[in-house]
């Protein structure tokens, strides 16, 4: 009985990894090799497509843009959310509850719902076509979940820690930097990885904000249009764009799993 369900489940699992094999396999062929033999294993592999994708199709540039923007946004997200989470979870001040709800409530406003006015706001602030603008945009749109998670995480830590540090004369800022940031490491790691995925994979916000320089996902979408007939080159581009994410998946599965399950289940 177990094997009867295990076989279809195994096929489903196979389908989840096959596209990656398909992509890498075809990226190593030349165009003629692909058309003559779409499924077969590559005969004489060549990295020429990767070289072309990197240089001629500008993916090198796009990857650099993506790395800059993703790093910037993730650092900003972690700093702002742990600072806010620390205050919301451990300190007493007026409107604490209201502010938490306001931040959570902004989850109700996905970017599609504010596409036009958001673009105009960015325009008014001179942030269109700047990497810094895209960093701020990602921070704004991915922040509520981060604040939620950090607040929930810090709520479970003993408050006496803060009291003790305060007795020793530490300021709140020192307490945050010296105690809360190191203590928050597991949650920060989870959030760092999840948000790296979100920023790297985004296409809509990036299309809107960075219209001259492209991030790698916008670049891939464009590449698909420009090189429709050259599938191996497209595959090489896809492989380059997906490689960092596949590495994250391999090394940080646990954190990704934890991050996805949180919010649904009391952690």
């Amino acid at each position, binding site marked *: 009985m177990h094997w009867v369900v295990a076989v279809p489940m195994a096929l489903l699992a196979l389908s989840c990894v096959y596209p990656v094999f398909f992509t890498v396999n075809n990226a190593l062929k030349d165009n003629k090799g692909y058309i003559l033999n779409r499924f077969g294993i590559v005969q004489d592999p060549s990295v020429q497509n990767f070289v072309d994708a990197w240089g001629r199709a500008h993916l090198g540039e796009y990857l650099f843009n993506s790395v800059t923007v993703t790093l910037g946004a993730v650092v900003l997200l972690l700093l702002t959310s742990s600072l806010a989470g620390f205050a919301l979870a451990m300190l007493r001040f007026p409107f604490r509850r209201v502010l938490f709800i306001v931040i959570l409530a902004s989850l109700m406003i996905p970017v*599609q719902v504010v596409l036009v006015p958001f673009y105009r706001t960015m325009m008014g602030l001179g942030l269109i076509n700047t990497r810094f603008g895209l960093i701020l945009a990602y921070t704004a749109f991915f922040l509520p979940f981060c604040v939620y998670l950090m607040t929930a995480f810090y709520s479970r830590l003993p408050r006496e820690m803060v009291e003790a540090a305060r007795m020793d004369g530490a300021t709140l800022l020192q307490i945050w930097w010296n105690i809360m940031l190191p203590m928050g490491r597991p949650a920060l790691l989870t959030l760092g990885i999840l948000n790296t995925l979100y920023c790297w994979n985004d296409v809509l916000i990036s299309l809107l904000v960075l219209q001259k320089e492209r991030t790698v996902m916008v670049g891939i979408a464009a590449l698909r249009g420009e090189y429709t007939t050259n599938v191996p080159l497209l*595959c090489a581009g896809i492989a380059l764009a997906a490689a960092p994410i596949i590495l994250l998946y391999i090394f940080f599965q646990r954190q990704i799993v934890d991050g996805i399950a949180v919010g649904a289940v009391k952690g």
Partner: protein
Amino acid sequence: MARRSEQTTALLFVLPAIAMVGIFRMFPLVWGFLLSFTSGDGQGGSVWVGIDNYRQLTTDTAFHDSLINTAILLATLPVWVMLPLLLAILIHQGVPGGKLFRAVYFFPAVLSAVIIGSIFNVLLRYDGTINAALGSVGIEAVDWLGSGTTAMASLIAVALWSTFGMSVLIFMAGLSTVSSELIEAARLDGAKPAQIWWHVILPAMRPILEFVAVVTTIGVLTSMFGLIYVLTAGGPGTSTTLPEFLIWMEQGKMNRPGYASAISMVLFVGMAGLAYVQIRIMSRNANG
């Protein structure tokens, strides 16, 4: 004295987060609401047109089609919830290879919609890989992405394939929290495995089921853009155009900010109720 300055410091700590969501989400929402009552005057300015944009929506066939497509998409939701639940139960029951399946199933979910869309575009388009394979065994080619009847089905299938693993993970996390004493007690009372599932485990899973249903619904309403953008571009015609894609088309190609904002407002109202439920579940879990 110290007390007061500490309250100020605490407020300052929350300020960056509040400023970010305020400037880039709350303020644009209000602005968008106002914009939805205006129309471009052709010289870069805008004029107040009252509810004209909304009136136009009632006769706009592209908008109607996008709603019908949304309805079709929502009709498939039970599959989006029940299939992962079934898979999670089977893995939890110790199917051979279950641990590996769990890890592999959510692999597509970490890939970008653009990556998945591009790969499936190569596979599914008319001169693509799948048709070449079908042709080699003598089956006539199907225009998966180019025909109105199959394009939406292809889009839904690819979207489902690329996200089901996430729900499997959430269900598995939920299953691991069901109290084993409860299950043991039922077993001692002579309940059969099927009865235990139906009367003990599934009721305990109710909050998780709710969560997955809500999150999936929000997901299909707001995160299909990337996939549509590279897989079908909303076409053929409007057969895979969802409201979020229509908003993009209206604001970009046709340069009608007021009209795009009106569609945005409709989407917002539709979403707000769902998001409210999600936030309630999340804040319940955070405080519990």
